[in-house]
C-alpha cells in the first residue's frame, strides 16, 4: 500500500465487512423480532414487564450490577428420559414390562436410545412418555432449565447480558428464587446467605424508628447480627422494591421452539 487511498480502501473492506455482518445483519434479523409462542401452552412469550420491574431494570443498570452478574444461560445439548406411565392392562404384560425395565437404561439417553427403549416397552403393551431436558454446566448448577434465547430479551432496554460471573447468573433468578423477601434481606445483608460475596446494598434501605406497629414492608426475620437496634426497623426504599420486582421478572422457564424441554409439572411418576 503506497498511498493513503490504499489504507482507506483496506479500512472500508475490513471494517465495512464486519459492520455489515455484525451490526446491520443482526439488526435486520433480530431487530424486528416479535413475541413467540410457548410450546404446549401456546401463550405469548415474553410478556411485557410490570411498571415496577421496568423501573427496577434501571436501578440494576444505574448500580452497574452487570459488572458481576450475567443474564445468559448456556446449554450443551439435550437428554431424554423414558418414563413409564402405565405398566399394561394385564398382570402378565406388567410382569414382562417390569422384567424388560430392569434391563433397560431409561435416563440420560440420546434420541435414538430413547426411541429404542420406548419401542421395546410399547411393543410389550406398556405405555411410556419421553421427557426432554436441557444439559450443561449452567443447568447442572441449578441456575435454570434451559439456555437463554434471543426472544427472552425482547423488552429489555438496555439489554444487560454481562460478561463476568463473579456472582451467579440471573437469567432465571425469578424462577429459581421467587421469594421477594429473600431478595430484600439478601440485598440488605448478603452475609445472611452463606457463600454470598455480594457487597451490601444498604443504601437502598432506610433504617428508621419503628412506630407502635412495625411498618407493613419492614424487613422481618433479620438475624441478630444484621438487625437494627431495638426500636428501629429496616424499610426498603422504592428503588429496592423496584430492583426486586425486576429480579423476580427475570425468568427463562418456559419451553420455546428454540429451547424445548418437558416442563416438570406435567411429569407423572
Amino acid at each position, binding site marked *: 500500500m503506497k498511498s493513503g487511498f490504499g489504507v482507506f480502501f483496506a479500512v472500508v473492506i475490513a471494517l465495512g465487512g464486519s459492520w455489515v455482518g455484525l451490526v446491520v445483519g443482526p439488526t435486520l434479523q433480530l431487530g*424486528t423480532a416479535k413475541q413467540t409462542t410457548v410450546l404446549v401452552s401456546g401463550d405469548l412469550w415474553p410478556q411485557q414487564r410490570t411498571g415496577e420491574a421496568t423501573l427496577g431494570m434501571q436501578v440494576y443498570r444505574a448500580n452497574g450490577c*452487570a459488572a458481576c452478574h450475567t443474564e445468559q444461560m448456556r446449554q450443551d445439548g439435550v437428554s431424554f428420559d423414558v418414563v413409564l406411565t402405565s405398566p399394561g392392562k394385564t398382570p402378565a404384560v406388567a410382569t414382562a414390562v417390569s422384567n424388560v425395565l430392569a434391563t433397560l437404561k431409561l435416563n440420560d439417553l440420546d434420541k435414538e436410545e430413547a426411541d429404542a427403549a420406548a419401542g421395546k416397552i410399547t411393543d410389550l403393551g406398556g405405555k411410556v412418555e419421553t421427557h426432554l431436558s436441557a444439559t450443561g454446566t449452567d443447568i447442572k448448577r441449578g441456575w435454570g432449565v434451559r439456555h437463554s434465547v*434471543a426472544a427472552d430479551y425482547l423488552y429489555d432496554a438496555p*439489554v444487560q447480558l454481562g460478561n463476568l460471573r463473579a456472582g451467579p447468573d440471573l437469567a432465571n433468578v425469578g424462577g429459581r428464587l421467587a421469594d421477594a423477601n429473600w431478595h430484600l434481606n439478601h440485598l440488605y445483608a448478603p452475609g445472611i446467605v452463606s457463600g454470598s460475596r455480594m*457487597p451490601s446494598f444498604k443504601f437502598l434501605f432506610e433504617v428508621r424508628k419503628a412506630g407502635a406497629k412495625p411498618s407493613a414492608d419492614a424487613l422481618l426475620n433479620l438475624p441478630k447480627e444484621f438487625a437494627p437496634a431495638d426500636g428501629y426497623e429496616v424499610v426498603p426504599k422504592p428503588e429496592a422494591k423496584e430492583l426486586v420486582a425486576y429480579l423476580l421478572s427475570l425468568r427463562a422457564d418456559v419451553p420455546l421452539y428454540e429451547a424445548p424441554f418437558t416442563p416438570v409439572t406435567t411429569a407423572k411418576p
Partner: protein
Amino acid sequence: MNPADTNQVCSAKIDASCRVPLLALFGGAALWLVLGLAFALIASLTFHNPEILAYCPCLTYGHTLAAANNLLVYGFAIPAALGVILWIFARLSQAELVLPIVPVAAANLWHLGVFVGVATIFGGGSSGYTWLEFPRAAAALLGVSFVLVAISAVATFGQRQERELYPSHWFLLAALLWFPWIYSTSNLFLGSNHPVRGVAQGVINWWYADNLVFVWLALVGLGTAFYFIPKISGQPLKSRFYALFAFWTLILFGTWIGIPAGAPVPAWLPTTSALASYMLIIPIIAVAVVLVKTLWGAKVASFGGIFCYMRFGTVMFLISALMLVVQACPKHGSVLEFTWFGQAQVQLQILGFVGLILCGAIHDILPQIMSTELPFKKFVQVQFWLSFAGLALYIIPLAVAGVMQGNAVYDPAAAKVPLMICTSGLMLLLAGAVLLLVNILVMTFKWKIALAKSAYAAVTAPLESSEVKS
C-alpha cells in the same frame, strides 16, 4: 550547513509545533491514568471485604469498575495515542503540524467529555452498555474532539515529503478512520431514543467492545511500536511485506471476534466469531516474525529504557491475542467464559500492551517537543520495572483466578486469594503512573514559568535606541 544539520533544525521546528497540543493530550492522559488505576485499586478492595464500599452509594463496585475502565481507555489510551499519532505523522511527513490550535481545543474538549462521563457514571447515569457507559453529552464531546484531532493529523499526513507510506502510517491512519466509524455506529444504534430491539443490542455492544479494545488498541500499539523499534534499534523494519500481511489479517479477522460461544443469538454469530478468533493466529505469527527479524542481531543497551517499553509491550500484544484464541477453543472456552480470565485479557491489552507502548512513546517524545531533558530521567526506568512487576502481580493472578473460577463452576469463593494479590499489582502500576504524571507536570510548570519569565522580560526590556523617535 550539512544535510544532517538542516534535518535537525527541521526536526526541532516540527517538535516545537507539536508542543502545546501534545502537552494538552499527554498531561490529561497521565492524570486520567493515575485516576483510572486508583479507581481500579478501590474496586479491587471489594475482593478483600465485600462490605468495604457498601456505605457509599457512589462507590459501588459496578460504578468504580466502570469508571476505572473508561478512564483507562477514554481517559488515558485514546488521548495519549492521538498525541503520539500527531507527532509520528509530523515527523514522518517532515512537516510542521497543520492547524496546531485545533488539537489543543479538541484535547480540552476531550478531557471535558471524559470528566462529564465519569461523573455521570458515579451518579448512576451509566448507559448500561459495556465500554459505552458515558452519557450522550459526553459521547458527543468525545466524537467531535476525535474528529478534530484526526483532521489535524490527516492534514499533516497530506504534507508529507516522501509520498510512499511507512508501515506505521497504515496502522495509525486506519486507527483514525476506525474510531469515528465504530463510535458513531454504536452510539446511534444503542444510545438513541429508539435503540435497536432486544438482543441485537448485545451483538452491537460486543462488536464495538472488540473493535475498540482489541482492534483499535492493536492498530495504535503496533503502529507506534513499528515506528519506535526500528528507530531505537537502528535496524530497518523487516519486512514491509510481513508488516502489510499483519495489518491486513489483523483488520480482516480481528473485526469479527467478540461474540461469546453460548450467546443467546442465532448460532451463525458465535460460530463466525470463533472462526475469526482461530484465524487471529495468523497476525500473531506475522507480528512475531516482524519483531524477531527486526531485532535479530540488534544490540541495544536498555535496562528498562524506552526500548524495553516497546519490545515488552509488543510481546504483551502477542500474549493477549493468544489469550483470545484460547478463549475461542470450545474445550477451554466453556470453562473460561464469563470468568476473570476474560478480564485479564482486556486488562493486559490496555495496561500491558498499549499502556506500556504509549508510556514509552510519551517518555521519548516529551523531551524532544520541550527541547529539554525530562526533570527526573531515572523515572523512566523505575516506571518500567514498577509496571513490569505490577503487570505480573495483576494479570497473572487474574488469569489464574479465571481458571480456578471456571473449574469451580463460578463458585464466588473460589478465587479469593489470587484476586487479593491483584490489589498489590494495581498499587505498583499506580506508583508507576504517578511517576509519569510527576514528570509531565514538573515539565509543564517549568515551561510555563520560563514562558512567563520571557514574557516579563520582553515587557520590561528597555526599547532599543533605534526604535526611539528622536
